[in-house]
């Protein structure tokens, strides 16, 4: 969101981005964009914080149910997804590195890899979800899993679906953002002077990773 305002109007001037009229210099403009992005990420962190608080509260109240319910999740799929997301985060970081060196082809490659891994993450998530639907391990009143009838089990699955669902939504948004930056990289736009869009896009992706790093042990490992 910020990157779009900050680096607008770059098309046609490949190696020197335009400074918007109200900024004193390019450095200030980049700084503003980056700070804006950090603030935006802070809002994302607090958005997920609400879910973490709900999780912590119910886990405190129903420890056994949560421990048993977490074992209903597929740990292998979860681990695989974690490794996938970390690797995608790594490729996103590498994209920033290449963008600074003006290697636009490598930037494209890295982002395409990232997006593919994000897609893989969602596919695995789809299989996990469909299994849960099949087992009726569903939120609140829709929960009808005979294998686990402790109080709190349905709350666990409510939180599971809410938090992974919200996270998956962010994955999709992240894919769109990265796709947009990839298109810019295909037009050879990035250089030593102009890599803010890459940096901000990848920062968003790292946040998606960061959230998952906490969600994973919370939901799968306890």
């Amino acid at each position: 969101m910020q990157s779009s305002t900050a680096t607008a109007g770059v098309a046609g001037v490949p190696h020197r981005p335009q400074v918007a009229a109200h900024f004193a210099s390019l450095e200030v403009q980049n700084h503003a964009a980056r700070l804006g992005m950090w603030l935006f990420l802070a809002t994302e962190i607090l958005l997920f914080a609400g879910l973490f608080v709900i999780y912590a509260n119910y886990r405190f109240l129903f420890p056994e149910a949560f421990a048993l319910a977490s074992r209903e999740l597929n740990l292998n799929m979860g681990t695989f997804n974690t490794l996938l997301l970390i690797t995608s985060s790594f490729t996103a970081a590498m994209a920033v590195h290449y963008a600074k060196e003006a290697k636009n082809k490598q930037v494209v490659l890295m982002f395409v890899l990232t997006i593919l891994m994000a897609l893989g993450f969602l596919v695995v998530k789809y299989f996990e979800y469909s299994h849960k639907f099949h087992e009726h391990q569903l939120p609140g009143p829709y929960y009808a899993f005979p294998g686990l009838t402790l109080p709190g089990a349905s709350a666990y699955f409510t939180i599971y679906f809410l938090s992974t669902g919200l996270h998956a939504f962010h994955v999709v948004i992240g894919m769109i953002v990265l796709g947009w930056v990839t298109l810019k990289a295909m037009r050879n736009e990035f250089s030593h002077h102009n890599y803010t869009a890459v940096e901000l896009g990848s920062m968003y992706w790292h946040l998606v990773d960061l959230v998952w790093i906490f969600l994973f042990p919370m939901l799968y490992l306890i």
Partner: protein
Amino acid sequence: MSAMANESFKEDREMRQEHHSGPGKYIAVWGALMVLTLVTVFTGKMHIETGALALALVIASVKGALVALYFMHLAEHQGASRVVFITSMLFVVLMLLFTLFDIGTRFRPALPNAATPQEWPVETRGQSGRYGGGLKAPGTNPK
């Protein structure tokens, strides 16, 4: 011009210097993250009685710190970005603490009664410990 917003120039310098360090750092961080993931899965599978959650959270925090510091470049630029990130984390922690204080110290019968699609769990330790203090589950009332 030079007097203007020194913050911006400092950060710009830091960002530019950083790229000389090469991709080695990213690979090292990536490796560390992979290893830590496997470690946390391994310790998670052991189902340790006490401190399993604390251990998992410590590992997750280390991983999160690595991502924030190196992938998100917090290690290189100080200033406002860092304050923003740390403040948001602090607020998350405080929000957690205050709500947990509440349910940890609340009048016990005022805690959620754990209704699920099933009957009230007569056999769980719920009523004697957590739901003690004068109130009991249906069916266990001696009168």
